[in-house]
């Protein structure tokens, strides 16, 4: 199968008072049609910037290098006019906070129709009908009446549904979701994630889901990529990574999440805190917090390399980490 999206050597840098920092460093992954890929990491790991870089939403003085192949064309070098057809059209994006992403002074119906008029050939009446269909599709009750409502009249979960309706208006082939459920309660999160999966089945679109919640990854994604300090440190199918993490950071993250049946025992925590982007340690960026670290980890940056079909890891000691076992099995 040909990947729908192919990201290669993506590097995003920002200029700060302390010189240039790389928020995303040499990131590469691909998304197959109809596949859900999870990008996991803690705050500052570069997962959201990766998503923004794909659609060229990073503005000067930030710079993006590398390539993002979408159906044979490179999004990063494509002229702005063509990009506008892809962005919001073939590739749609939803954001973490629906209240700040929606326009507060426009009824949601108009916001859905905006996308329809930009990316489809429908006339006014057809757009109004389609907007109502979309509201039905994402499970908003009394769709016809609520089209006239403003974002503040919706609850958090319903706003996120409106965002998804706007994203789906153009019939996208790929959905980029940036922490779509982080601001929501657990029962509403469950509804939204299952909605995204249903829509994926119905419309055969690929999904890139950015999240910090490993539970969300376990419940929704097919493959995952773990990010730390701007780099991908491990990728593979979700089942494989959970069963046998090969990077010490992945193992630590899995161990940090409490599990049932081990009440009031100490968690396998990771000491220290993630490094600031301006002071990434030499060698492997995880080495000061890693219990497996040796001299080579402090000198040489490990490259992301394939050790089994579909499984990549950037660790000098990944065999030892794997031998230590998964904390979730």
């Amino acid at each position, binding site marked *: 199968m040909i990947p729908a999206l192919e990201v290669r050597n993506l590097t995003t840098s920002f200029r700060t008072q302390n010189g240039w920092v790389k928020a995303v460093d040499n990131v590469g992954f691909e998304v197959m049609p109809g596949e859900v890929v999870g990008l996991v990491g*803690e*705050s500052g790991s570069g997962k959201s910037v990766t998503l923004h870089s794909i659609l060229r939403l990073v503005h000067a003085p930030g710079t993006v290098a590398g390539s993002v192949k979408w159906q044979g064309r490179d999004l990063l070098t494509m002229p702005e006019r063509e990009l506008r057809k892809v962005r919001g059209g073939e590739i749609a994006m939803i954001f973490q906070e629906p209240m700040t992403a929606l326009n507060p002074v426009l009824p949601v119906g108009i916001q859905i129709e905006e996308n329809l008029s930009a990316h489809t050939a429908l006339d006014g009446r057809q757009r109004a009908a389609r907007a109502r269909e979309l509201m039905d599709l994402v499970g908003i009750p009394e769709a016809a009446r609520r089209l006239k409502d403003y974002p503040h009249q919706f*609850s958090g*979960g*319903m706003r996120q549904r409106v965002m998804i309706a706007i994203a789906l208006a153009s019939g996208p082939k790929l959905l980029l979701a940036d922490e779509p459920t982080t601001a929501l*309660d*657990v*029962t*509403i*999160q*469950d*509804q939204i*994630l*299952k909605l995204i*999966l*249903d829509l994926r089945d119905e419309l055969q679109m690929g999904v890139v889901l950015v999240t*910090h*919640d*490993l*539970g*969300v*990854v*376990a*419940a*929704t994604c097919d493959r995952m990529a773990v990010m730390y300090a701007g780099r991908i440190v491990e990728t593979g199918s*979700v*089942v494989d990574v*959970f069963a046998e993490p090969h990077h010490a950071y992945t193992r*630590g*993250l*899995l*161990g*940090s*999440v*409490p*599990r*049932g*049946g*081990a*009440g*009031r025992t*100490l*968690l*396998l*925590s*990771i*000491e220290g*805190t*993630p490094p600031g982007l301006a002071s990434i340690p030499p060698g492997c960026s995880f080495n000061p917090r890693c219990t497996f670290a040796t001299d080579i980890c402090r000198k040489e940056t490990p490259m992301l390399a394939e050790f089994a079909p579909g499984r990549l890891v950037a660790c000098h000691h990944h065999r030892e980490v794997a031998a230590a076992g998964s904390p*979730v099995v």
Partner: protein
Amino acid sequence: MNAALSQTLIAAEEVSKEFHIPHGLWRRLTGQPRLAVHALNGVSFQINRGETLGIVGESGCGKSTLARCLVRLFDCDDGRVRFEGEDIADLKGADRRAFNRRVQMIFQDPYSSLNPRMRVREILGEALAVHKMRPRAQIPARIAELLDLVRLPSDAADKFPHEFSGGQRQRIGIARALAVEPDVLVADELVSALDVSVQAQVVNLLLQLQEQLNLTVVFVAHDLRLVRHISHRVAVMYLGKIVEIGPTEALFSAPRHPYTKALLDAAPELDPTKRTRTVAARGELPSPINLPKGCLFNTRCPHAFDRCFAERPLLSDRTPAHKAACHLTDFGAPSLQNLEAIS
């Protein structure tokens, strides 16, 4: 559980709290009644000495309001909170100060709960001085001891809060609470602002400190996995009422209220091989201004029947330690067939 553990330290009795909404001109002119958010609607439970009670629920269920009522940051409108048998609303003067010292609260946001213009030494020193915990000369030594207790470096004392990461700030918050040697810690969403790997550090610290100092902990959180991990007993709240309370493992393995079950089913499993595609709970939280009649969960409950819309169920015993507020008293009970299979 031995006798010392099962001794009641704090008891909430039918605690209710309302927040009034500004009475608008139109509503006033048209003679409509003043609206209020019903944050707590008759909450009763006990906290035993030395235990950790977890309080879970979704946003807007009243769990933070309850935490604030327990430490008397809010006065309850109705009902009372008893600490060692005495109504905390009646405490005055020295008694009230003693209560304030013995029941400490740690707040959710480590960025706004520390004074940005005070050094850590001043933050901790203030707590020590207000409650006269140590003679002036011994204060520096005590500050060093506290920093060591929460595993912060000793040079932290002369820094400002902005020089620390979120996890370290939350440790400062814990040190400040522990400075006055309390009996009870009320932790409101202690780790929800922190990254996963840092959360685990703070949770481990809390577990160790509780053993070391024999603390009673009220752990308010929305993260079910975390509450399950850390609590001896758990109370589940919905729209300002406790719908179920019981020993952690009993409640998590066999929930006796449909809302608890929905909440547990909605929390994503950490095992990618156990996936479901059915939605755990439909609909959303009703408005806390106009509460539904009858059972508060009836708008979303798949098992609701006539009685649920007419009569509000009371919290009643399922087993001596496990209570639920549901008209379906055998909901989630091991059925007779299962019992036969076990025996």
